[in-house]
């Protein structure tokens, strides 16, 4: 009966939640975005350093459930080194997949596991909130550049 849950809470997800990668307040950040889920209190603060259109460094701080924290951690590993446009595309693909829509999985790495969250409608926001923060941070960065 916990089969669907096992598909979502795989060992790699539990590992990222327990040992988040790229955790910290990036001192060299060129933009940052704080997001908060008022219904559960999950918080993600994402910090990006963009150099010549490329995300050279990325870190986050936050607190919340396994899904939200693992999602932020996985996001940082996937996004580091990508161009802003590549990152925006990946963010859109992740959000679409998490909501059960068709989208390419290429480039998302282990983050793809979290798109299983589509089977748990009340938890989709936990997985997507950090990707939404990424998108906002990049859009802000692009606005400032323009």
């Amino acid at each position, binding site marked *: *009966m*916990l089969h*669907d*849950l096992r598909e979502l*809470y795989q060992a790699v997800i*539990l590992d990222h939640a327990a040992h988040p990668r790229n955790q910290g307040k990036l001192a060299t950040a060129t933009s940052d975005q704080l997001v908060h889920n008022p*219904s*559960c*209190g*999950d918080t993600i603060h994402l910090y990006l350093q963009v150099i010549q259109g490329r995300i050279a460094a990325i870190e986050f701080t936050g*607190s*919340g*459930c*396994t*899904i939200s924290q693992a999602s932020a951690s996985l996001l940082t590993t996937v996004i580091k080194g990508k161009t802003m446009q590549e990152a925006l595309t990946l963010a859109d693909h992740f959000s679409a997949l998490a909501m059960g829509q068709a989208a390419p999985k290429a480039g998302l790495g282990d983050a793809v596991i979290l798109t299983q969250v589509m089977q*748990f409608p*009340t*938890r989709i926001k*936990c997985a997507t909130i950090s990707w939404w923060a990424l998108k906002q941070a990049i859009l802000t960065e692009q606005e400032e550049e323009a």
Partner: protein
Amino acid sequence: MRRSDFPELTRRIGDQPLTYLDSAATSLMPTPVLKVLQAFYATNYANVHRSVSTLGYEATNRYEEARQQVARWLHAGSDEIIFTAGCTDSLNLVAATWGRQHLHAGDEVVVSIMEHHSSLLPWQQLALQVGAKLRFIQLTPAGTLDLEQARTLFNAHTKVLVLTQVSNVLGCENPVGQLAKWAHAVGAIAVIDGAQAVPHLAVNVAALDCDFYAFSGHKLLAPTGIGVLYGKRVLLQQLPPYRYGGEMIADVSCETASWADGVQKFEAGTPNIIGAIGLAAALTYLTKIGWQRIWQHDQVLLQDLATRLAAIPGVTLYGSGPRYGVISFNLAGVHPHDLATVLDQLGVEVRAGHHCAEPLVHALGTESTVRASVFLYNDQTDCDRLISGIKTAKEFFHVT
């Protein structure tokens, strides 16, 4: 107790039977109440207080009988019972009418840290608008209200005490009567949120000597969208209307208007007639089973849960007994939302989060908790399934 009266208990969550432990959010409706609603819609449905028709007369009688029933149950007069859209609406009504009239710059509102947002926010926002100050009653280390500290908060500037009778997170009963006395001693009024108290305690507004008392029907087996505000007669007479519309007037001209006497002044527009009928039916049902029997049943289940939860390594219980209706806890190493998701997969429905009481949850040193709540239809099997679900979650998340 009477599980067979509650049809929703026969449904399944996925492939699992339902264990409903979220009555503090909303209670289930028994067949006798559903039948009254159906019969009213099918045979008595009409607007109230307007028509000279037989149907209008009958509907008005039923609606007013519901008011009288609520009044008797709370030990109030029926001219002190306002039907509202819910407890939130009731509490907003007091701040928007009495509060707007009486709260000024420099005044103080004594409010407990335990308040639900619906009790805190109307006064917080009004205080911000008029330049008044909120003074919070804090917690003792045991998780009860700090009465010694509370006593120091009342002074000549205090205009109102805002207090929940039973915390929707901790389940503890606050000494409403005592605090209302302190409020009255400095000329303040006492506004009491009874949302979590009414299903689990005998409420006598006359004995509590509170000035306003609010609750919702849907935590008492009635439909959503119906609530009650009790207000002392002498206070209600002095209040301005809450909203404007039909049936709350005495006389209207193009330029001006005067207001209806009594509680109708506060019930603009077509009220939630079916909600009031449903609330009356729910009170009839609960009274027939016997309140003492229900309270005792809930106490036994909660005490059992408290003992068994405390025995699970890694479980932190919040507050201390006796608890009324709810018990909140956390499991070390598992976020409340992850635990609630596992329990849901096992058919056990609980609430996880800050329970619309963020200041309290932060005062408890956490961001969120899991909350299980019981009512008359829960039984030992429900407790067993919660405890076994927590153990399953520990295994699932490899927590020792």
